């Protein structure tokens, strides 16, 4: 009996010791302690002169740090260049697009080759509503159109960037924030400046708390908490 009690309590004592030695002291309360960029993304197998979602669902869950749903087009040469459009919640002001309060706002964003980043943030988008978002350079002149609900919101000069890898993106900064996105009607602009559905879509999942519902590929990026999609 004594041996049995020892076998029960010894691991507990060891565990308490282990936690005391290994675990860091709790940080002071801060909304975004331990923030890191966590992605759930999908990309097609072919580059494009633009990317579009004809119907991106807006979610308005309780967000502490940041929650982003977007589409974009990024340079493949590793120079960091991209254009992006979508909605975000940014209650802690962690991201340069301005602090949001309550419901999400639409935004468009771009980074040019020098590394300079600029964000344009617009009006609220209501929970449950769906909107279209696009980035495109159909003229192939380096001047991109960043579009929300079929209205061009910014025309950044992107220098020599005219085509790249389309991408659908779900993003958060802490694992306690929501990570769900539902980006439907994924299209890329092909070499004839026509919108075509994605093919050979693959996922990039750096989010341990959510998974990509690959059954929705190639035209939709839907994420879900671990479990059935």
């Amino acid at each position, binding site marked *: 009996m004594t041996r049995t009690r020892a076998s029960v309590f010894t691991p507990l004592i*060891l565990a308490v010791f282990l*936690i005391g030695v290994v675990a860091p002291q709790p940080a002071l309360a801060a909304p975004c302690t331990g923030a890191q960029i966590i992605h759930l993304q999908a990309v097609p197998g072919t580059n494009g002169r633009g990317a579009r979602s004809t119907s991106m669902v807006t979610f308005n869950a309780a967000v502490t740090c940041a929650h982003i749903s977007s589409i974009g087009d990024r340079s493949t040469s590793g120079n960091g260049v991209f254009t992006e459009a979508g909605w975000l919640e940014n209650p802690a002001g962690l991201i340069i697009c301005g602090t949001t309060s309550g419901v999400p706002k639409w935004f468009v964003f771009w980074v040019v080759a020098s590394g300079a980043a600029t964000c344009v943030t617009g009006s609220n988008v209501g929970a449950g509503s769906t909107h279209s978002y696009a980035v495109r350079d159909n003229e192939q*002149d380096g001047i991109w159109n960043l579009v929300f609900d079929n209205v061009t919101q*910014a025309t950044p000069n992107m*220098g020599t*960037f005219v085509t790249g890898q389309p991408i659908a993106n779900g993003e958060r900064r802490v694992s306690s924030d929501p990570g769900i996105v539902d980006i439907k009607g994924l299209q890329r602009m*092909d070499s004839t400046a026509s919108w075509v559905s994605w093919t050979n879509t693959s996922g990039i999942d750096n989010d341990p708390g959510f998974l990509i519902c690959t059954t929705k590929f190639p035209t939709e990026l839907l994420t879900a908490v671990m479990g059935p999609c």
Partner: protein
Amino acid sequence: MLSTHGHTERARLAVAIGVCAALAVLGISSLRAEHAPQQSMGLPDIGTDQPIGGQVVTLDQAAGVVPFSIYRPQDPVASDSTISRVMVWTPGPDSQATVRMEYGSGVVVTLTQWPAGQDPEVSYETQWKQAGGLGTLTTVNGHPAWLLPGNATATAPVTGSADVTISSGVADPTINTVELTIGSVDILIKGRLSIDELVRTAGTLG
């Protein structure tokens, strides 16, 4: 009775092991959060500094693929003798001709061609304005250039329509950049070296 007692002991043991496992997982999770790598938290982030696709080639092979001159620096921090990798992207309907040269110092030089209709000098000025006046527009050996140190701050407001908010431009704090144009070729020099070293390097392009 013995059997029941045995079940009770096993149940206690199972609970204890479960508690230990949970505590250990909590401890490890906390540790990971504490030591997460520092990233640029302030940006929506779908860009990448890692090449996607492209082929690893020699300089000679790259010259046979792209329709422009491959201007190369000859500076102690970036020269033909210190190239660690050359990559090329073939021009095509969905691909942009690009050469990327990586050097032992960490400097990366990327060459692309200006599209028809773009004037490099005008483009730099427009990009500079759209980013809130970040960095300095200048020339290097008479070629138009934009110098952008990572610690640059916006010098001018960015304005737009009344119903939107436009952030001041933000530089990437992790890197310094010199971008210049020779002929129709845009040359991007990025590195963690000082901006002066990158400008010196740009001055050796040929």
